[in-house]
């Protein structure tokens, strides 16, 4: 675009999914009534002291290992000072002088884009990851700011990338990929709309000064803000202005100046004088790496290859929904194959499009029930029309929480009388009626236009409402038309 070179780097804050806060034993809760998850320490009462929650460390180390970072054998915490109602102690505990992890990477590959064609693989280098405290939340009601301390002292990791992202789209894809990865590992739920994950971007054009855009609450906002900022800087450069380093906001259409370098805050960083140095055993990162599940990229590799051969887009959908769904798929595929099912592609197809595509419910049929349905269809015991009806029925049961263990495919087939009937006189009678009502089509068939049977087939299927399989109907029609 326009011969100007864009460079983006990201700063991502991700809330750690721990039961307790970073430096107190208060429970984390993201939907509790305001100021009900606050300990004396969280409210910064005099005489209270921090206590490091090692569960936060475990999650932070998991993220660092998955992102190929070097983890420090020992590290400490620092205080970053600024006074604001959302910061009860007047400082945030972070890792300014010594981030616990440095120098990792995450590759953005062609297949990570929604339209993979033509995209190169971009290696996004991770400069550092640090552990820090979240702030409280300020809510403005009628010009009065109200402070909710529930979020105070929740564990965060802040991840800083090098400016390795060459396009707005690649930045969006990176954020999505990181969300999937962190969610997959149980490090963070990845939700941007609730603020569990927050992204700031640094944008520079033609290697000039960089501008930071703060508080982008969705992947699409990340992409749109980078595009808008890129265009703004190009406009300014081309009209002879000098781009200066500043912090900017995003209003959904344009970026706007929040503060310049002259307004930058002196955070008066200081090593925390009471938190002990954290020392890690040499083997800890290896240990964590070994206990980690297969990463999303590996899972995707597996799904698109034999024996699964799931189409890439469906494999990505499964991955986006989480490992629960991927595992469900694999189990169903195994059962389907074991039971002699032939057309294995229906397993991913029906799971992705006919289940995940139809409902938001988290309730699931058992692998057995779901696979039994596909097997019954594969073996011709029910028609695909009936199978679709049964699946809809299952969705309904799931959504109303009535999907009990005694629900089996056999019981549904019997209950609704959906089994494929033997071809019989009744079918012949319906077929004869259809032929009589559609003399044009019948004549075309008889004159050698074999395709004309499909029209008659459709009409008969409609009339019999899926009692007979298409193959049964077709052979009956062809037999009667020859007479």
């Amino acid at each position, binding site marked *: 675009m326009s011969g100007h070179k864009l460079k983006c780097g990201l700063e991502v804050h991700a809330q750690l999914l721990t039961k307790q806060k970073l430096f107190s034993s208060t429970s984390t809760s993201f939907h509790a009534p305001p100021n009900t998850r606050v300990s004396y320490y969280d409210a910064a009462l*005099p*005489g*209270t002291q921090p*206590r490091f929650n090692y569960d936060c460390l475990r999650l932070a180390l998991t993220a660092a290992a998955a992102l190929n970072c070097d983890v420090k054998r020992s590290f400490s915490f620092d205080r970053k000072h600024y006074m604001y109602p959302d910061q009860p102690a007047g400082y945030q505990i972070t890792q300014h002088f010594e981030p616990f992890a440095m120098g990792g990477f995450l590759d953005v590959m062609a297949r990570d884009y929604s339209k993979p064609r033509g995209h190169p693989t971009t290696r996004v280098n991770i400069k550092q990851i640090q552990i820090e405290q979240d702030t409280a939340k300020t809510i403005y009601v009628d010009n009065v700011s109200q402070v909710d301390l529930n979020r105070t002292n929740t564990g965060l990791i802040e991840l800083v990338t090098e400016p390795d992202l060459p396009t707005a789209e690649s930045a969006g894809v990176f954020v999505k990929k990181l969300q999937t990865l962190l969610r997959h590992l149980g490090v963070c739920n990845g939700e941007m709309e609730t603020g569990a994950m927050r992204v700031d971007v640094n944008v520079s054009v033609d290697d000039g000064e960089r501008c930071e855009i703060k508080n982008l609450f969705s992947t699409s906002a990340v992409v749109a803000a980078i595009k808008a900022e890129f265009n703004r800087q190009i406009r300014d450069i081309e009209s002879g202005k000098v781009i200066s380093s500043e912090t900017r906001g995003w209003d959904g259409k344009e970026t706007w100046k929040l503060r310049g370098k002259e307004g930058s805050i002196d955070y008066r*960083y*200081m090593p925390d004088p*009471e*938190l*002990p140095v954290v020392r890690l055993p040499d083997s800890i990162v290896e240990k964590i790496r070994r206990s980690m599940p297969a990463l999303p990229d590996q899972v995707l590799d597996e799904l698109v290859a034999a024996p699964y051969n799931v189409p890439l887009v469906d494999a990505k959908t499964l991955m986006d929904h989480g490992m629960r769904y991927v595992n469900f798929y694999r189990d169903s595929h195994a059962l389907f194959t074991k039971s002699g099912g032939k057309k294995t592609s229906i397993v991913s197809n029906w799971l992705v499009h006919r289940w995940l595509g139809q409902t938001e419910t988290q309730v699931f049929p058992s692998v057995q029930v779901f696979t039994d349905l596909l097997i019954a269809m594969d073996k011709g015991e029910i028609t695909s029309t009936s199978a679709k009806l049964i699946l809809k029925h299952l969705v309904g049961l799931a959504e109303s929480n009535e999907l009990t263990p005694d629900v089996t495919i056999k019981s549904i087939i019997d209950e609704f009388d959906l089994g494929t009937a033997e071809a019989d006189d009744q079918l012949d009678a319906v077929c004869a009626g259809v032929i009589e009502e559609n003399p044009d089509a019948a004549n075309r068939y008889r004159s050698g236009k074999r395709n004309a049977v499909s029209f008659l087939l459709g009409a008969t299927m409609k009339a019999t409402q899926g009692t007979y399989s298409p193959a049964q109907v077709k052979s009956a029609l062809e037999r009667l038309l020859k007479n």
Partner: protein
Amino acid sequence: MLRNYKSPYESSVVTLLKDEGFNLIGKANMDEFAMGTNNTFSCFGPTLNPLYEEPTSPGGSSGGSAAAVAAEFCDVALGTDTGGSVRLPAAYCSVYGFKPSYGLISRYGVVSYAQSLDTVGILAREVKHIARVFHVLNQYDQRDPTSLCPELRQTLGSRQKKEAKGLRIGILSQAILEMSPEIKKAWAGVLEDLQDQGHTIHTVSVPTMKYALPTYFMVSPAEASSNLARYDGIRYGTRAETDRDSHDTLYAPTRTEGFGPEVQRRLLLGTFNLSAGAFEGHFKKALMVRRIIRDEFNALFASKNVLVEEDYETGDIDVLVHPTALTPPPSLDKINHGDPIEHYTNDVLTVPANLAGLPAISVPRGKGAGMQVWGQYGDDELVLSVAAQISKQ
């Protein structure tokens, strides 16, 4: 700032004492946020030294505690010692004031001034009372991240007990300063007594100790400026009326009204020390000097510092003995007409023990004078034993 604030929870030290059957009779006056050496910076007014007719300093910051013990209101009092705040009042009020090794007594519930130096201290008229209370409070507390861990407590406990006989006692050449004649005389008397009891006296040197005072005034106000940032009047404590309405202010009037002059002085100094321009040259350098001071003390003492993992060459000194303050307590009149900064030098012979985390006790020796006994980190019992051998006279 916290005049009407009542803590909703109890500190670990108070709980431990209550559980042991001690009666808590009240809170004592002190310098605001433990900043001061004469107990004149209190929103309740100054504490007076019970030993003197003329209004005289009881020492600070835990001056109320020392005065209460000296006036026999109670047998024992607690205080905190960040740069000498228990020992100096003990000396001025002629009682014992003990600052244990850093991290032995829990700080949970102690309002932080500079927590890399803050230590809970004990004041009493008898060493045995100090020891009794110390044994109750010397417990690991998981709520205090600086509490010495159980493993190292065990290491200290299993170390062979040194009997307080035939010790090698050091006098720091850096402590030989200009001092009042009565203090000098008291020091000489104590050293003679100790020699008579079979100990030997040796002059030793901690060259970097001459930088201890400036180091202390880099580190402690910096930590204080961080710790006191929470007092903004929003969640608790005093709040200025102008901060409650829409005057576009939020904290500044609250902090200007709520903090006394000495606290404001130290907060400004600390804020400067941590600012981007001063951090490297002031604060960071001070941390380096502090480390050197600690190493120099380690090289002096015969017992090894258990906090140092590496091996190093130990010295041959068991304890150090020198005065707590260079003069007897000043009168309030003199204080009111002097430069507030002048009193910072009162801490010159107390702060090195805080910077190095060493156990130190001030032993009364005559009216308004105290002699300190310092030992290696963890040699608290030895320090108390030596203190018991020095007569009060």
